[in-house]
């Protein structure tokens, strides 16, 4: 508990936080970048194959979301085992739903 935490720990924490801040800035800049790239890719739809662009922007979205989850939402931290498990669980079910809705829902 709080009381038996030594000042050393606090110092280490402070340092960690500083590093964290840097992570935030980097992630944020990257996220903005991915967004701009995605929008830019769509602007180029007349000159590049649509499928390529689609794959590209979906990848951008996923990468961006990974940053959001792992850095902003701290899924990278070590006490996030269960949160990750259940988020991935939800994502798996969602993915299955999406996949089936775009493939098998239509019948001849």
């Amino acid at each position, binding site marked *: 508990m*709080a009381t038996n935490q030594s000042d050393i720990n606090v110092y280490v924490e402070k340092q960690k936080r500083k590093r964290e801040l840097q992570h935030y800035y980097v992630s*944020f800049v990257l996220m903005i970048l991915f967004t701009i790239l995605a929008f830019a890719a769509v602007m180029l739809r007349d000159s590049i194959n649509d499928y390529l662009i*689609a794959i590209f922007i979906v990848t951008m979205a996923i990468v961006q979301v990974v940053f959001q989850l792992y850095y902003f939402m701290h899924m990278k931290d070590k006490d996030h085992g269960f949160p990750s498990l259940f988020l991935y669980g939800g994502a798996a079910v969602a993915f299955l739903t999406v996949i089936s809705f775009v493939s098998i829902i239509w019948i001849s």
Partner: protein
Amino acid sequence: MSETHTSIEKLANPEKATLEGKNKFLGFWFFLGGETVLFGTLFATFLALRDKVASGPSGPELFSITTTFISTMILLVSSLTSVFAVMAMKDNKLRQMQLWFWVTVLLGLCFLGLEIYEFSEYLSEGLGYKTSAFSSSFYTLVGTHGGHVFFGILWISTLMIASYKKGITTVTAPKYYVAALYWHFIDVVWVFIFTVVYLLGILGD
């Protein structure tokens, strides 16, 4: 509870200092797992119905890529400001936390205003909720996200108003923390919305 007024000065993670806090933290993440399925279902339905425009206009005919871009930027920045708020909270800096959360709320309001403007545009161009299967699924998906933004704004605002009285304690810290998580999650969903609904929509045109 005696911990109520415990100073959090020396705590690395005040939001997880008590069992209640740990429970709230974990429970909220699980809730987000459920929300993922909820949005997954909405996305799936939208994808299945997105070109069933009946006699109404299609998405790409209406979408304005600049509006979407601005909305996206607003929401991304608000995600960063809520990160700052949580950092301030961990440093036990009440004023700073309040400031960043209020900025977050403000950005959220801008986003919401833009969305309302956008929807009213579409309405005036003949895309009513009842127009087609596309319109129903579009408004429901994007609207559900908007509803989440709205709820997030209400939630963070009340927390902030209360924070003037309650400060940052092991009781309140988990609340601030999960509210910020919620806000990030809203952003995550939006990333998929602008990608799947708007960008892929325009692309598929």
